């Protein structure tokens, strides 16, 4: 169950974080950005779990993956989806 922190999967998760994190800041649609941010959070959570921080992983999945994403989506209903204005 434990992954080698330097192993392939862990590195892949870190790369995923970097890519989704960067792209989430650049896309022009808030819903897409929120979804990307969700992926970012889940990758982070998986990486935390791989390093034995199961509590942190659980929390990050609940909060970053679910709650923050839901709040972001909810906010689009009262603001705008477009991120260029």
């Amino acid at each position, binding site marked *: 169950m434990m992954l080698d922190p330097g192993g392939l999967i862990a590195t892949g998760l870190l790369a995923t974080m*970097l890519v989704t994190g960067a792209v989430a800041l650049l896309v022009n649609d808030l819903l897409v950005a929120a979804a990307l941010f969700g992926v970012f959070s889940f990758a*982070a959570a998986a990486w935390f779990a791989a390093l*034995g921080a199961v509590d*942190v992983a659980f929390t990050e999945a609940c909060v970053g993956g679910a*709650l923050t994403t839901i709040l972001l989506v909810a906010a689009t209903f009262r603001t705008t989806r477009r991120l260029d204005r």
Partner: protein
Amino acid sequence: MTPYALAAALFTLGLGGMVLLPNLVRKLLAMNVMQVAVIVFFIALATKDGGRVPILEPGETEAIAADFMNPLPHTLMLTAIVVSVATTGLALGLLIRIWRQYGSLDERILLSRLRGSGDDATRHGAGDDATRHGAGEPPR
């Protein structure tokens, strides 16, 4: 890619986004990225080669420090995650207010609209700004 390097990269990315991106929602997303970077850093600190998840089996009573991941940074990061979601929630509230009042979430547009309305006119209008700008509903 070592976790520390990734944490540094994400932290810089987040801080840069907060400073450079003009859209307020993007600033908020960048803020979250930066906070995750800090968490990555702490979790990497907590690892020990050959360490276990810091939870004992029900029958276990004795534990040796070297066998388990360091639980302290994990605890700290639980708190940090809470702080980050709390800040995000409050910030979204502010964003909705700003959108309703000024019809924009872009720093540059906001700045020009704020300047156009002048300090004194808006200081005291509190929530009435949307009507002051001649539109009951912000442009969608």
